[in-house]
């Protein structure tokens, strides 16, 4: 098998090609104007999709029925609590981060507690808990929009030659998580459980311990995303997590991770996240009405997933 052919068989390549085509379709419309700025914007927003996408990918890789629907609520809670604790003071940035991560840890423990004690499917457990988490965020934040500390705002919006600093950090994080998934005992256990939970159990893998760690990891990454996104967008808001329900699942599936579990893919997350953002901005550039934009977004997502699902059945 030639190297080129091996590259073409990578499931994540498709998402990058799709993202590039959408970018091309956008700048053709503007006759080449703003192509560079568009890439910068895409990298910026895709960064946040990738952070939650990594957590969701580990969860989905655990196998059928595993999905974390509490990510948007967790982001909102962590963001609003951290902003309130930091109270615009630069000196509190580290404390704010710890507080946000503590929120994530609490959510992860709560989610897994429900799954284990009530013996209910994770999708129902995380859905129920998201009600409670969102309520806590509403009651705590009271709809107040507290600005992030200036230093945090500067860091989350900083760029080096058009490349967002945050994107560089998250690329490193993604690389680290790819190593965790493919090279560590934990990551390989996640893959094994996704392929066959029973076989993994017989092989001596502590299934429940791995599942516990995975749900906590997803909640921690969601809280990190909520913290950074609040810093980036000038404070937390109650609706800030809304689009992340679809985004977190869509980037995982479009990125080439198997929905049936047991086969994770980290590089694809970046391609899929860029694609998702670029589709939005393409539809904005074409100046479609709000209704048509929603319609086109939905149809494109379904079309891409149908195409991605088709590749799997061919094998």
């Amino acid at each position: 098998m030639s190297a080129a052919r091996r590259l073409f068989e990578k499931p994540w390549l498709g998402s990058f090609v799709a993202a590039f085509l959408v970018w091309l379709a956008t700048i053709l419309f503007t006759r080449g104007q703003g192509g560079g700025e568009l890439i910068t914007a895409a990298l910026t927003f895709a960064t946040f999709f990738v952070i939650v996408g990594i957590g969701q990918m580990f969860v989905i890789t655990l196998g059928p029925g595993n999905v974390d629907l509490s990510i948007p609520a967790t982001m909102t809670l962590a963001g609003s609590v951290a902003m309130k604790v930091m109270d615009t003071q630069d000196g509190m940035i580290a404390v704010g981060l710890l507080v946000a991560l503590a929120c994530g840890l609490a959510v992860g423990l709560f989610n897994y507690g429900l799954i284990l004690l009530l013996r209910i499917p994770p999708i129902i457990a995380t859905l129920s808990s998201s009600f409670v988490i969102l309520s806590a965020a509403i009651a705590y934040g009271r709809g107040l929009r507290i600005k992030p500390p200036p230093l945090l705002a500067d860091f989350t919006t900083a760029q080096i030659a058009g490349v967002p600093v945050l994107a560089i950090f998250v690329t490193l994080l993604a690389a680290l998580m790819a190593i965790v998934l493919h090279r560590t005992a934990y990551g390989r256990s996640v893959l094994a459980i996704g392929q066959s939970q029973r076989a993994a159990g017989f092989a001596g893998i502590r299934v429940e311990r791995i599942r516990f760690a995975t749900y906590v990891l997803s909640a921690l990454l969601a809280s990190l995303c909520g913290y950074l996104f609040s810093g980036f967008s000038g404070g937390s808001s109650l609706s800030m997590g809304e689009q992340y329900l679809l985004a977190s699942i869509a980037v995982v599936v479009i990125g080439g991770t198997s929905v049936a579990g047991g086969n994770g893919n980290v590089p694809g997350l970046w391609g899929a996240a860029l694609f998702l953002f670029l589709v939005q901005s393409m539809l904005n550039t074409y100046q479609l009405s709000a209704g048509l934009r929603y319609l086109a977004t939905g149809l494109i997502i379904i079309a891409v997933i149908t195409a991605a699902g088709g590749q799997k059945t061919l094998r």
Partner: protein
Amino acid sequence: MTALISPRFLRAILPALSLAILLALIFYLNPRTMSYVGLNLMLNLAIPIALATIAQLCVMTVNDLDLSIGAYVGFVVCVAGTWLHQDPVLGIAALAGGIVIYALVGALIHLRNLPSIVVTLGMSFVWLGLAVSILPRPGGQAPEWIAWLMKLKPPYVPFPIIAAAVIAAVAWFALMRTSYGSILRGSGGNPRSIERAGWSLLKTKVTMFALAGFFGMLAGLSLIGLTTSAQANVADRYTLYSIAGVILGGGDFVGGRVSPVGAVLGAITLTLSAPFLTFIHLPPDWQIGAQGAILIIVLALRAVIDRVEKRR
């Protein structure tokens, strides 16, 4: 006597029991609600929520989840508030088209083996887009016959209770008492054996999604009869309500184990939780959370019952 309080029996009456406890608490907190007018007011919204719950139950029977039902109900509301009112032929065609799209989504999910969560999340954008295109700003008007139907005041028993009973009876009969109903449930419980027995899994999935589209349409029509004017995002919460209703009603997430009667009771319980939380003066901030907590408590009770059953 021991047969009466067996875990199986307990699990079967849990939905009715939760509803009875909630209703008793409401009557205790506010005795004025224990009247024809009071029940009518509190239970009005139970009709569309119960219909949306039955729609969700159809999809959950075949091991899928519909995250687009809220947006779809909003779409139906917008069609009913504009086209169905002004141009009935166009309106009926649009509503029929909605059911056909639901059936096609079911076929797509089955043929390409796609995760229903992602496809229906995508579909929720499609429905929202269609609804906003039809009716960009809140407005429109309910067709007279729907408004008339929803304002019916039959003697003795409030209309919502009669409607809920009819919905539960129809769904129960179709799914639990007909022979094809058991095939449909079987295709969720053990798809392979249903297929080996010669039944088409594609057909069962398309049937269930089309039925979901049908009941979702009824939910939208009854909702606009109550609100009298239309808005695209009027039913956003219905997605969560419908899933919670099926679960409260004793449905399992997988395996075709569903209970239509329980689901309608679950929908009523959810509807009643809103006035209950108002009567105990819970701050509005915590209302969604309290509904989540009610869901968790019922699930916990069921887990306890299951554990007792296993020990025997």
